[in-house]
């Protein structure tokens, strides 16, 4: 029986997601600096909304206004229609997960107690809070042995996982993430990003994520809000639209190079026309084929090498993409790995499903450019 | 001039230079000697000891442990115990004050050298600095602000601590306190306290000045 986790505010939230609405929100500092300028947008339920932009664009300020770490000067932010300004800040924050750059773990507490911080605040029974913490350590992929350690004994990536676990501890419907992965090395960052996506596919939280890294924004965001210096919204769109139709020069420049190639990752390769007649067994090589390239496969249909009838003794390398799962960028990449110019579609077991030839790829690319 | 007890200023003027040992000007110069000698001696001793502690890490734990213990010893009983060795002399005051100062300065030197960023040290090595040149031209300048901060603490507390020496007859301006207590009279106490605090402020001010002259980059960074 799943317990009903109660967020700090309002009636029981049941871990249910909430919609966050910015309604003409402005943040002006006493010295006249405008950090956020008349921002209106919606972070929809169960989706990841990314705020991205150069430094000074007010993305972090915008995020911090949601849990009232900073109060808006004008306009309001609504959580399922309730203005956050009307909620007592600590109560509000206990119902919103918050992950920051350096994880901000409490150095004097063991990992398990760090994760249980909010449940303790909400007055949970100690044992129940710790059990929940252990459960979450597993969810974020940490060895349970870590629970009894102190933060200084963990690597940066591990600390960041603990930070995520801590934010999830009371099962808040909303998660705010402020450049959570920017202090770890690129390899760890990639795996943390992948796990966040995996986690989100199970949890369906309403997540607002701040980053200065456009690639991270495009990878993680269901919707991406590009902000310009001075805190004005330049464009709010899903990543694919952002890449294909940047609203103006600023967004175009911010997106950087390879916009076209990067856009391919939002087009599924499932629609590629595949040929199944280009595979042969190792010992059944036809001497008189008309095809310029043939793919040698094992008896259980695993790819071995490309071969061309012109030089039958040479084995050439191949590239694969996952049929039905991978996108066009992966398919194109697979094609470029081989002198045949063809991409091999495989299933999850690594068995060949078919082959996308240059012609098939051309058709798909023409379609993509058409958007 | 009235017949009553002298005012503060009258007392001060009359006792500034009586030509005798106990005149305020003499006490002041005694005070300067007994506070400056430990400060300078401690600095001279702490630099090589601190460097040794940085060079040989294992040395730091026992050294700082010993210095912590020495620092915890109250001055008066130490003066008393030293009398049997060095007699009722200024040396009896100077030796313990030197150790107190070292207890503060050695960690300052170690911390200061520890504050030299590794990339700075590495690039100095890469540019071909010999170890001694690197120390003198790169590491010590960078450590200077931390060492000077320690020196400020040492200067002020040494100047104030000297006065306890009055209890063994070697207290510099502190002699004014015992004199005032034996012959209950307020002006000497006030002159003594104000004199010592002023001396400490002057010493502190001079060190702040030295800090600005020696490490101009620290200020420049703060201003930017």
């Amino acid at each position, binding site marked *: 029986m799943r317990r009903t986790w109660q967020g700090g505010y309002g009636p029981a939230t049941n871990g249910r997601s909430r919609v966050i609405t910015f309604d003409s929100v402005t943040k002006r500092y006493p010295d006249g600096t405008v950090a956020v300028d008349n921002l209106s947008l919606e972070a929809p339920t169960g989706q990841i909304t990314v705020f991205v932009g150069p430094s000074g664009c007010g993305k972090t300020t915008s995020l911090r206004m949601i849990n009232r770490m900073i109060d808006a000067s004008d306009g309001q932010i609504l959580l399922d229609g309730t203005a956050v300004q009307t909620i007592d800040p600590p109560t509000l924050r206990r119902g919103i997960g918050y992950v920051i750059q350096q994880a*901000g773990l*409490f150095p004097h507490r063991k990992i398990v107690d760090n994760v249980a911080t909010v449940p303790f605040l909400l007055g949970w029974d100690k044992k129940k809070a710790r059990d929940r913490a252990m459960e979450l350590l597993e969810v974020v992929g940490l060895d349970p042995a870590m629970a009894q350690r102190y933060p200084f004994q963990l690597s940066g990536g591990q600390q960041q996982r603990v930070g995520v676990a801590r934010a999830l501890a009371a099962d808040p419907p909303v998660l705010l993430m402020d450049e959570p992965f920017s202090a770890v090395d690129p390899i760890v960052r990639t795996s943390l990003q992948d796990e966040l996506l995996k986690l989100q596919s199970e949890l369906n939280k309403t997540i607002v994520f701040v980053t200065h890294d456009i690639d991270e924004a495009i990878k993680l965001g269901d919707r991406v809000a590009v902000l310009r210096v001075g805190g004005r919204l330049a464009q709010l769109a899903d990543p694919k639209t952002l890449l294909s139709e940047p609203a103006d020069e600023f967004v175009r420049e911010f997106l950087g190079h390879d916009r076209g190639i990067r856009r391919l990752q939002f087009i599924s390769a499932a629609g590629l026309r595949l040929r199944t007649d280009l595979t042969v067994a190792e010992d059944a090589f036809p001497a008189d084929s008309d095809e310029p390239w043939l793919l040698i496969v094992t008896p259980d249909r695993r790819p071995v090498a490309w071969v061309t009838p012109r030089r039958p003794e040479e084995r050439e390398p191949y590239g694969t993409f996952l049929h039905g799962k991978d996108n066009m960028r992966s398919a194109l990449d697979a094609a470029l790995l081989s002198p045949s110019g063809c991409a091999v579609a495989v299933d999850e077991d690594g068995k060949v499903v078919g082959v996308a030839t240059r012609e098939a790829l051309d058709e798909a690319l023409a379609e993509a450019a058409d958007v | 001039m009235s017949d009553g007890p002298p005012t503060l200023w009258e007392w001060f003027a009359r006792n500034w230079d009586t030509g005798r040992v106990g005149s305020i000007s003499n006490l002041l110069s005694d005070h300067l000697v007994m506070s400056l000698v430990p400060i300078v001696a401690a600095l001279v001793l702490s630099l090589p000891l601190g460097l040794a502690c940085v060079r040989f890490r294992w040395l730091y734990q026992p050294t700082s442990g010993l210095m912590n213990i020495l620092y915890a010893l109250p001055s*008066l*009983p130490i003066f008393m115990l030293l*009398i049997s060795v060095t007699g009722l002399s200024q040396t009896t005051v100077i030796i313990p004050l030197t150790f107190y100062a070292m207890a503060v300065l050695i960690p300052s030197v170690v911390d200061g050298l520890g504050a030299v960023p590794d990339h700075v040290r590495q690039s100095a090595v890469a540019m071909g600095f010999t170890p001694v040149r690197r120390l003198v031209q790169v590491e010590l300048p960078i450590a200077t602000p931390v060492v000077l901060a320690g020196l400020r603490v040492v200067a002020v*507390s040494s100047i104030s601590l000297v006065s306890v020496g009055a209890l*063994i007859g070697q207290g510099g301006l502190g002699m004014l306190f015992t004199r005032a207590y034996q012959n209950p009279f*307020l002006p000497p106490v006030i002159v003594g306290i104000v004199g*010592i605090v002023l001396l400490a402020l002057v010493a502190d001010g001079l060190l702040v000045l030295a800090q600005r002259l020696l490490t101009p980059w620290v200020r420049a960074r703060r201003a930017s």
Partner: protein
Amino acid sequence: MNWLTDFFGNPENWTGPGGIPMRLLEHLEYSVLALVLAVLIAIPLGLLIGHTGKGGVIVVISANLARALPTLGMLVLFVLLLGTASILPVIIPLVLLSIPPILVNTFEGIRGVDPELRDAAYGMGLRGGQVLGRVLVPVALPLILLGLRLSAIQVVATTTVAAYVGLGGLGRFVIDGFATKEYASVVGGSVLIVLFALVVQLAFTLVQRVSVSPGVSQRIR
């Protein structure tokens, strides 16, 4: 060495109001009294100033100034001003002189906590008092305890000097012995005070080991 056996071997030194046990208790009493009063004033003030960030400059400046104040001069000043009817004139400077180390270190300790940590604590939904009590104090504890230790060292030393203006305690052996040229008493008393100071130092080191989280001192592994 003869002085030591003379002093500690003399049975008269072990009994009565002027005996070692009584003097030791007196020394302990005055030191603890002064330290407790100083803690009651300095810790709340240091926490408040460190937490709110207001008035920090004044704290640092006045603490530096206080370091320059000569202990003997302060003791004589207060005794001359307030008389010797009670021990109050001696206790006041004792307390005043032990406030600065606690105040400064508490303030610096709280103020020095990583701002990210403070941010995370508020972001989790801790209230101001909870942030202070559950996060800032435990993290700043090594510095706060350092301030207490420095202050205790100061108090023990000043209590010794205070024997000169008539306070009891171990300093009496030293001051009286010096005045009457009984060097056994001077040396014996000095050794007792040194031992007392070392025990105090040791006690604070132990308190620090026990009360600071291993996550903060990074004392494991």
